[in-house]
């Protein structure tokens, strides 16, 4: 595990105090390499989102630490851009303005106004939203909103891109298209990505490694699966690929049979 970039070290999270204390995450440790694509998978309510929020800095860890690029994470910041589950675009701003707001904040000193304008357009082109710049979030579909959310996140040039079930609320076709776009962006920009999902195919298709969490309370890492598929990956070719099928079976097996294995052990 050389060249660790993001490391989650013995993170536990307990909500509440005393008798009402409720431990959600127990002693989670994970090392992520630069440019790696990691999926977190587990049953609903197992604490995946809490773990992502700890990495984002939105929720402080009760114990342990998150270290990114040799610096400990204490608070949220644009170096860990989050794509939220429900897109979280600001409805009073246009598509362009939503991305520009983030670009202006992050690159206020580093880029001139013209450069920030070009950078905003460039990122919206990456998600193929250049034709809806003046639309407001209320006027575009759910998939388009999520694409703008992704554009806003990658426009911050984050060290780690955090995706919180980004495609959970979308229909299957839209989801497939967005997965392909995320793969293209990942190939082009080489982002380090941490993605939450509960879709097994999505996890296998996109990830270099799949981190499987046991059921809460006190969720911990049950197993980590390497996905040794070469990139670029083509959705249709993979359907019959034995490695792909093997990985999918391993994740399904974990989710359906072994989620309680820590308690049993």
């Amino acid at each position, binding site marked *: 595990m050389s060249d660790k970039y993001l490391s989650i070290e013995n993170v536990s999270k307990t909500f509440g105090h005393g008798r009402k204390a409720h431990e959600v995450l127990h002693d989670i440790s994970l090392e992520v390499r630069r440019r790696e694509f990691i999926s977190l998978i587990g049953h609903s309510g197992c604490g995946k989102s809490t773990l992502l929020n700890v990495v984002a800095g939105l929720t402080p860890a009760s114990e342990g630490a998150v270290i990114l690029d040799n610096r400990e994470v204490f608070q*949220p910041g644009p170096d860990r851009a989050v794509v939220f589950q429900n897109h*979280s675009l600001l*409805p*009073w701003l246009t598509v362009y303005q939503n991305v520009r707001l983030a670009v202006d904040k992050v690159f206020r000193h580093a880029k001139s106004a013209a450069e920030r304008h070009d950078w905003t357009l460039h990122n919206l082109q990456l998600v193929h939203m250049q034709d809806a710049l003046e639309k407001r979030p209320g*006027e575009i579909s759910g998939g388009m909103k999520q694409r703008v959310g992704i554009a806003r996140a990658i426009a911050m040039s984050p060290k780690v891109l955090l995706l919180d079930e980004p495609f959970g609320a979308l229909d299957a076709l839209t989801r497939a298209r967005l997965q392909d776009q995320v793969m293209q962006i990942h190939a082009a920009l080489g982002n380090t990505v941490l993605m939450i999902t509960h879709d097994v195919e999505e996890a296998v298709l996109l990830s270099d490694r799949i981190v499987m969490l046991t059921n809460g309370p006190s969720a911990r890492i049950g197993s980590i699966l390497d996905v040794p598929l070469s990139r670029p990956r083509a959705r249709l070719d993979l359907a019959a690929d034995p490695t792909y099928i093997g990985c999918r079976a391993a994740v399904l097996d974990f989710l359906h049979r072994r989620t309680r294995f820590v308690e049993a052990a």
Partner: protein
Amino acid sequence: MNSSTRELVTTLSAITHHAQQPDADVRSDSAANDPNPPPGVWHVIVGRLNEAVRVVVPPLVTLAVLIGIWQLATSAPGSSLPSPTTVVSETWELIVDPFYDHGGVDKGLFWHLLASLKRVAVGYSLAACAGVGIGVLVGHSVWAMRALDPLFQVLRTIPPLAWLPLSLAAFRNGHPAAIFVIFITAIWPIIINTAVGIRNIPQDYRNVARVLSFNGPEYLSHIMLPAAAPYIFTGMRIGIGLSWLAIVAAEMLIGGVGIGFFVWDSWNSSRISDIILALVYVGIVGFCLDRAIALLGRLVTRGTASG
């Protein structure tokens, strides 16, 4: 929260109303860009006329019926109130020439209304600025809310006119005293609605602001004010209505030029017809003020409620 239920209900209706806006815009845009104007324009005109008829005719019919009843009820000789025809004939000079100025307080209705509107404009503007400011503080800080909210809940129940003697004692002059009464009347709904709007900012927007590491002023201008704008304008709309209610009453007591004083002066000179005419004007101006703030709110909060 009980206290702001009414405001919230108004907000909800404002939001649903607002949500229909984009459709209306799209329709007018497509009409403007129509490549074949003659049939398009004709249809639009007929459509607009139809709509106008549906909107304008029912209230006109109601008005005619009410005036008819009023005419019947007051046409007997010795009636204590004048009939509509008497009102029109007795106030004809005031109706046709609202701009005369014979010096002192003997002026046309336009000047009285203008004086009242000036007082409202000053008092209400102060109330809007201070109200939004205090509302942001109360909505954002739990401690400010705990410290101030109980006070506000008591103070806001004091009737506007009850402040007037105190205000006169403090300012020793009718004009600033009246402005203070407007201020103190309009500020409560603005504070309370702004605070509710700030407290209701969705966690998602707060998270966006935290990920972007917004500082205080950035958070205020990019997240808080736009997110709370529909609530703020609901408060401002209630505030302008209350201001107009209060100014007429306050002017009855402080004298000088103003529509409230005009009503009181007419009563003292037993010119009942003048009072009725003044009330019509007061109602129309109040209606226009309410609509003006509502329109301003719709323009400013474009897009905020949808999505």
